[in-house]
Every structure is written in C-alpha cells, then in structure tokens.
C-alpha cells in the first residue's frame, strides 16, 4: 500500500482546519474557559486549586474533545466526500486512521499547547505541569479514537450532536482514571508509572482497533 493517499487525507484535513482557524481557536477558548470558571465556582483558594488543577485540566480536555467529536465526519458526510472516500484505492480503515491522526493534531495538540496558561492560573507546580502534559499526550489519542467511533455511529443522525458524547463518556472513564493517576505525586511507588503504561496501552490499542470499527460503522451506515 502506498502511503500517498494516506498522507493526502491527513494533510487535507489539517489544511482544512488551518484555513478555518476559527474552529481551532474556539476550541482552545472553550478549553481555557472551563479552567477559568472553576475558581469562580469553588473559590480562589490557592492550595485547593493547585491540588485539583490536573483534574481540572483533564476535565477541560475531556469536554473539549467531546465538543470536537461532532464535526469529525459531519462535513465529509454532508458534502459527499465520505462516499467518494469509500471508493478510494486505500481501505476505509486507513482513511479513518488518517482522519484520527489529523483530528488529534487539529483539536488536541492546540489544547496541550495551551495547557501552560491554565497551569499558571491554577497555581500548578512546574513538575506537575510537565507530568500533566505527558499524561495528556499519552491518553488523548484514546479519547480521539473513542470519539471517532461515536462520530461514525451517529454521523447520519441529524440530532447526533448530543448523543455521541453520551455514548462515548462511559467507555472513556478508564482514560480519565489512568490519566489522573499517572500525574498524582502522592501515589504509591510504581503506581504512577503503572498508570502511565496502562494509559499508553489503552491509547495504542484504541488507535489500532478504532479505525476498523469506524470503517465498519461508516460502511454499514451507507448500505
């Protein structure tokens, strides 16, 4: 299999996102705003905020990725590109894989880059910030993979916007658990690295198997 069509899809999606830069900016704003409204909800206590900051950042990333799910295949479905992709000379799974990687680059990467802003406002230690960024890098591919499955299943629903997150949230809980555990400084010896390894394992497995599930769902949807 030549890598050319794969790269073409990947670059196309990233280009499309960079042309309509507003979407990326909106998502980053949403991410930061979730972090900013939390102090209003629980008070500006420095100790408290610093201790829950990793959780807040993970929640913000979690919710932002749920928000991004809907536009995963929607545009391609509506303008018929998805139908054309089914007749491409590479498999639909490979296309789904390319789109997953593209989605990670255009939605999650900007959030991770914006993380230091939130870290500063939530009084995070530098060491914890580094760990949070590492855990986000390790865990978010799985979030995107599950999100892709949800998006593929609900793509033909006109009111699919709310249902995909509801389907994806419960099965994404392990990612959140291991993501947070891999940051905790006061966890027992070895627990952090174990959590990190589990997180990486889930991400790798999800990224390998999700493209097949996505391709299957897209194919069944258009039968």
């Amino acid at each position, binding site marked *: 299999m030549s890598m050319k069509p794969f790269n073409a899809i990947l670059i196309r999606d990233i280009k499309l996102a960079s042309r309509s830069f507003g979407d990326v900016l909106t998502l980053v704003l949403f991410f930061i705003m979730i972090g900013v409204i939390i102090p209003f909800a629980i008070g500006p206590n420095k100790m408290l905020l610093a201790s829950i900051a990793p959780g807040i950042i993970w929640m913000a990333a979690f919710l932002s990725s749920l928000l991004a799910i809907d536009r995963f295949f929607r545009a391609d479905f509506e303008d018929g590109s998805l139908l054309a992709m089914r007749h491409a000379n590479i498999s639909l799974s490979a296309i789904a894989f390319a789109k997953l990687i593209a989605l990670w680059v255009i939605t999650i990467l900007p959030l991770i880059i914006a993380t230091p802003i939130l870290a500063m406002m939530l009084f995070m230690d530098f060491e914890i910030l580094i760990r949070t960024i590492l855990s986000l890098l390790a865990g978010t591919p799985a979030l995107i993979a599950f999100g892709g*499955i949800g998006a593929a299943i609900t793509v033909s629903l006109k009111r699919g916007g709310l249902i995909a997150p509801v389907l994806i949230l419960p099965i994404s809980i392990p990612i959140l658990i291991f993501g947070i555990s891999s940051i905790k400084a006061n966890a027992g010896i070895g627990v952090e690295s174990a959590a990190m390894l589990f997180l990486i394992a889930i991400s790798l497995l999800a990224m390998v198997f999700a493209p097949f599930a996505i391709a299957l769902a897209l194919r069944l949807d258009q039968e």
Partner: protein
Amino acid sequence: MKKSSSATEQTLKKMNWFDKLAHPGQFLKWSKYLVLPLTIITILLFTIGLWFAFFNSPEDYQMGDTVRIMYVHVPNAWLSQFTYMAMAVSAIGTLVWRHPIADVSMKVAAPLGAAFTAIALFTGSLWGRPTWGTFWEWDGRMTATLILLFMYLGLIALWKSFDDQLRAAKLIAVLTLVGAVNIPIIKFSVDWWNTLHQSSSISPSGIAMPPSIYIPLFVMMFAFTFLFITLHIVGMRTEILRRKADALERKSLNQNEKRG
C-alpha cells in the same frame, strides 16, 4: 394467494433447522407455546426463593436481617452483566449473519438490562446504608455498575434516535461490541482506582457461604434469570408484531396513495 403461500413453504423447506427457528414468523409461532410454561416456572421459582429468603434462611451474624437484601441484589447484579453478554452475542448475530431476529433480541435486551442494573444499584445502596453507613461510595464494583447503567441508557437513547430500525441495528451492534470489549477495561480501571466492596463469595475455588444462605441465593438467581428469559421472549414477540404492524400500515398507506 395460494401461489405465494406455497412459495413460502418452499423456502421454509430449503432452510435448515436453525433458520427455521430464527425466522421471525416461525419464531412467533413456536415461542407462543413457551410463554406460559416459562411464566409458571418463573412464578414457582420466585415463590420458593422468596419463601426461603424471608422465612427459611438465617440472619447474618454481623449484618442481621439486612442480609436478605442480598437475595435480590446479587441476582440483579448478575443479570446486569448477563444481559449485556446476551446483547453482545445478538450484536455478533446482527453483524455476521445479518439476522433480523438478532436485531430484535438486541433491542429488547437493552431496557431489561438497564432495569436489572438500576435495581442492583438501588438494592445495593439500601444494603450499603446499614452495613457500610452510606448510600453511595465510589467503590470499584459500584462505579463499574453505574457506568454499565449509563452504557445501557446510551444504547436505549441511540435506538430511539434512529427512524430506520434496520440501519440502527447494525450501527448499534458495532457500539455494543465496542462496549463489550471495554467492560473488562472499565472494571479493571475502577477496581484499581478504589475498592471497598467485598470480593465475590462465589469463586472457582469454592463458596464462602453456608448452604442455608447459598441455596436460597441460587434459587433466586434462577428465578431472576428465568424472569429475564420470559420477559426477553415476550419483548421480542411484541417487537416483531410491532414491526409487522408498521409494515402493514406503510403498505396500506402506499396503496391508498396509489388509489387516491
């Protein structure tokens, strides 16, 4: 009319025994004779089980009378997982053999599973209040059961949001299987995260309970399992009949349009 009926007979002859059993029309015929016996067995099992549970089983030396909640709690917790298993098997049937009966089985199982899971959680919190001193605790098993309930409710919501039930079945089958793969991971992760719930008393190495408690428990587990089977078959019959009614309605509407 006669010609069409003989054609159906011919296709019926060509089918093997499994296709015959699973053909929706045939299913309606043979399952009719199952409903009453299954109902009677279920009622009998419940009568015996409840009598044991209320009058003929000892109090626990620590928990006292509250131990009797177990006879409802454990069977429902077992069925909350069993039903998902049944749903996942039906999902394979939908995807591999594209069989309409598998679609129907999958669709009907979801609300049943949600109900069993909700009862397991409810009785669990009733039991937890006197024994642990709290209605809810973020313990591994309880959390995993709660997540399972959300998965059931999500699947039900997804069934409701599709108009075309045939297309819905295939897509939901994909999601059901993705969920089935995830259930062990979820269980493992929440156990790893926090654990308070007592571990299972029934394991391959033996049963950590006296017979006076495990006999009524097993009777109640059979009773609830038969309840599930009965409700599942009745639900499948209703769903098939509903689809037939829908098809007839659509047909008559089309004919009216042609005439009018």
